[in-house]
């Protein structure tokens, strides 16, 4: 589902964020990406839909080349990649439903959408996604009146509205009260199990990653330092990923 080869990302002037990443993720996997901050987790996720432009290497998602895709083609590929962010990234002044509708933008006719009009089918679909995360009753509430956990659920609904093949989640629970971690991770797990979507989730909490993921990928200094099932992640490996030795 995701094929990454030789991915390098260098930020000007000379910060190497990713230093040669090779990774293949199969359909339906739930991959947790671990690593210290600055290890390249966020850059890796953001380069998969080219919110960050790769310096070198190739990326394919759902059978299509992300790297080298032209503007229109890139938009079509992005439709298939839902993304959830640490800070939710909702439009604060818009309603929950309007935020979820943004997930349909890649599909709806361009001109009416700019005027704020969406086909009825897309509205229904967006409402359905909001119901799926348990927030149908908040459809008309302004996003900034919702709690952090609710905002992140709206953001997940927005990603689902894209009818994606892959969902990327960048530290989806890091801005939330720890007690809310499981509610968000449960929703992501349900998406993974019930809809067969491929998930790549970066996590700073080791225990959470072990509890939900089917596969752990550990980043260290811009490279993949560990790749295996949760059961293979021994304390020694964890120290290697998180440790402060060279």
């Amino acid at each position, binding site marked *: 589902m995701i094929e990454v080869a030789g991915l390098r990302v260098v930020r000007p002037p000379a910060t190497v964020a990713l230093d040669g990443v090779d990774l293949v993720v199969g359909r339906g996997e739930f991959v947790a990406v671990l690593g210290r901050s600055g290890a390249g987790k966020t850059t890796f996720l953001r380069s998969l839909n080219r919110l960050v432009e790769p310096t070198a290497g190739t990326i394919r998602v759902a059978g299509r080349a992300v790297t080298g895709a032209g503007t229109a083609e890139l938009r079509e590929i992005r439709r298939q990649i839902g993304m959830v962010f640490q800070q939710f990234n909702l439009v604060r002044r818009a309603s929950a439903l309007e935020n979820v509708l*943004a997930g349909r933008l890649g599909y709806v006719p361009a001109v009416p959408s700019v005027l704020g009009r969406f086909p009825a089918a897309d509205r229904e679909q967006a409402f359905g996604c909001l119901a799926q995360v348990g927030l149908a009753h908040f459809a008309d509430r302004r996003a900034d009146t919702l709690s952090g956990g609710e905002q992140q659920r709206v953001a997940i609904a927005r990603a689902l509205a894209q009818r994606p093949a892959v969902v990327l989640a960048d530290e989806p629970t890091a801005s939330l009260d720890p007690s809310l971690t499981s509610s968000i991770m449960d929703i992501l797990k349900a998406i993974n199990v019930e809809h067969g979507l491929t998930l790549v989730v970066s996590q700073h909490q080791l225990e959470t990653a072990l509890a939900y993921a089917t596969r752990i990928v550990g980043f260290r200094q811009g490279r993949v330092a560990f790749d295996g099932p949760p059961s293979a992640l021994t304390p020694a490996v964890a120290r290697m990923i998180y440790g402060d030795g060279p």
Partner: protein
Amino acid sequence: MTRAAIFTALVLLAWLVWDTGADPVRLARGVPWILDFIRRMMPPDLRVLPAALAGALTTVEIALLGTAVAAVLALPLGFLSARNVTPGAVFYPARAVLNFLRSVDTLVYALIFVAAVGLGPFPGVLAVVAYTTTSLAKLYSEAVEGIDPGPVDAVTATGATRLQILRYAVIPQVLPLFLSYVLYRLESNIRAATVLGFVGAGGIGFYLQTYLRLIDYPAASTVLLVTVAMVMVVDATSSRLRDRLV
């Protein structure tokens, strides 16, 4: 460094006082003249009240129409001169043109437009449009540059086009700011428009200048009082509206 800066500033100030002939003694000697001027304005001649009110209405109309047209004209300019939504090839020329046009004040524009289209409120409207468009464009572009990039990332990730990103991630964030800037400009334009009549561009300034020339101080004081009342009413209304926007 600091000491040298303070010394330089003091020298500069001393030179400015000398070069402008700023002289407290001369000001003190002028006080009786000012008092005499005020005494001769009393009591205000209320017979010119209808003329003063008509002039005030024209001034408000000039400011309202000019600000409204400028608020719309400034939109494309504001986005084109915002670094984060416009490529450098467009951004730099747009900024340069704006900075050049903004260096000319409303009153100077009024002189030009009176020469171009003749006397009356119309050149006043044109002058307000010319100056306000550039100053609002500058304020708009700063608002656009100050947005939270998170929603832009999120909407970009859905596969939206540039225009859709603008509509769904940028505009909802800046619209309340834009409206508040427009109201703020309206307040300053009311004040600017009061002197437009001095150069023949219509409004209450025409009456003030006429009565001063005729040495009819009681009439002039009525016009002044109407001006003050008009500015206060507009300021109060506008700031109440602005409070509601935030």
